[in-house]
């Protein structure tokens, strides 16, 4: 991880690399191109949503005006790239590489302009909208149930996820700021516990979504253990940023392994508790508070593995018990 004091010099060296190395420049161009394609895919797919049908009134305007509006839109989405490209160009100008500086800006303008023209074409040819290759870029080709959950988190819970992750990040970093003269393995657990507890709303939303949109999966021949493992994978992937933070803060390998298992088991425990609590928010908040207090106390007494065992055992048994027998009150 780059120290705060070295951040400017780090980016300056990156920019110098872009200016002086052709292969590095090509890599950066490829990344910017992929970003443009993805943002264009987003713009084009947004035309297809029923709530955005009013956008088709833009077709009443002359083409040049349409391209102007879409250029502004693409330029705005492209803003992070523009910022970096602009500073890199200024560095290039200062280093006397006038051509590279102009080339960097022209390339980005060309990207935005091309994507605007494509978007305008799609807007004026709605029948070709669904056939657009940009619209159909799918990754992965065959999505698994795990991917369904991840897509939901990334599509519908963007804001909740960002706020949760920010709080979780601050909680973990905050605990690592405690000045100690020796390595203390309870610190990552305590910080992580606070961060994981912040995931309660996210998990509640996931459970709500399961009850509304994934009921059809109850008819699929999948064992409850398989479904439980899907959730385990989802939650393990969800805590990757915190795990990365632990690695950066030099948490010992054994503790790191324990922290990963702890995080996964804790989130599964909260998820399964919602079956037991019948999705009652009041009881859920009480449950989360009590669970946090008990967990924090047990971590203080270095009983983290005991906690992992309890979380895993109880969550599996609740999940197996309630998965088929749970009935949403809204039914």
């Amino acid at each position, binding site marked *: 991880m780059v120290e705060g004091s070295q951040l400017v010099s780090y980016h300056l060296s990156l920019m110098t690399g872009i200016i002086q190395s052709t292969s590095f420049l090509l890599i950066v161009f490829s990344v910017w191109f992929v970003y443009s394609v993805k943002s264009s895919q987003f713009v084009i797919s947004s035309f*297809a949503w029923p709530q955005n049908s009013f956008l088709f009134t833009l077709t009443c305007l002359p083409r040049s005006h349409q391209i102007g509006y879409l250029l502004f839109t693409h330029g705005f989405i492209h803003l992070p790239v523009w910022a970096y490209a602009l500073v890199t160009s200024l560095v290039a100008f200062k280093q006397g590489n006038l051509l590279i500086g102009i080339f960097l800006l022209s390339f980005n303008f060309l990207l935005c302009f091309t994507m605007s023209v494509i978007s305008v074409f799609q807007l004026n040819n709605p029948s070709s909208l*669904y056939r657009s290759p940009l619209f159909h870029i799918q990754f992965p080709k065959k999505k698994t149930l795990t991917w*369904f959950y991840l897509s939901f988190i990334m599509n519908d819970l963007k804001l909740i996820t960002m706020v949760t992750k920010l709080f979780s990040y601050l909680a973990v970093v905050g605990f690592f700021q405690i000045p100690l003269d020796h390595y203390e393995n309870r610190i990552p657990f305590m910080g992580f516990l606070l961060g994981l507890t912040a995931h309660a709303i996210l998990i509640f939303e996931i459970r709500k979504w399961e009850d509304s*949109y994934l*009921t*059809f999966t109850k*008819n*699929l021949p999948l*064992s409850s253990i398989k479904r439980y493992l899907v959730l385990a994978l989802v939650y393990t992937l969800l805590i990757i940023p915190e795990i990365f933070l632990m690695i950066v803060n030099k948490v010992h390998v054994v503790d790191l392994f324990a922290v990963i298992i702890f995080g996964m088991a804790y989130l599964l425990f909260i998820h399964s508790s919602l079956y037991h609590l019948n999705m009652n928010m009041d009881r859920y908040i009480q449950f989360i508070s009590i669970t946090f207090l008990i967990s924090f106390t047990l971590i203080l007494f270095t009983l983290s593995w005991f906690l992992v065992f309890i979380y895993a055992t109880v969550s599996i048994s609740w999940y197996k018990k309630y998965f088929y027998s*749970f009935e949403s009150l809204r039914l």
Partner: protein
Amino acid sequence: MLEIANIKKEYSGQLILSIPHLKFTDGIYWIKGGNGSGKTTLLKIMAGLLPFEGTILLNTSTDIKKNPIDYRKYVNYAEAEPLFPSFLTGYDLIHLFEKTKSASSVDVKNLVDVFNIQSFLSNPIGTYSSGMVKKLSLVLAFIGEPKLILLDEPLVTLEDHSIPILLKLINSYQSEKKVSFLITSHQLLEHDALKTIQGVLVKDKTVCFL
């Protein structure tokens, strides 16, 4: 084919269905009944979507509670008003069903062709009309090697020219693959189109043959 015994279903303490015993042999059944009589609840129970008291046996040995995976492999279900995540595409769901129901991709492709839905399968479901979602759910219900297919109001929102296609498919699955069907419908199921359809009535919180 399907035997149900001592079925009881309550919502918030209120009895909705009580079926002492019922045995469905191979065939096509038309489940009739008024609004709120419990037709959808019955199908959802049979599909394994709702908890209930009692036993359901498929082919005398596969118990819905004791063998939940085997049972679900052979019983498919299409909802009256299917609800799928809007960001997924039709293909995402078809691939999931194809994999979990161990279906051959050739059969799946044939089903997609029969319902002529390939043109929109790559699009997010959020962009589908209700008729398109219905067709997708019907295709999903035929995927795999089912022994029983439960169709809840399959004709609702389906365009006129697709109805004979669906009825023909039901006929061919019954005669060639010996797949049984339990269908609820407020619309008339034409007897000419469907062979030997038997009536079932859901009334007064219980179910009986007509």
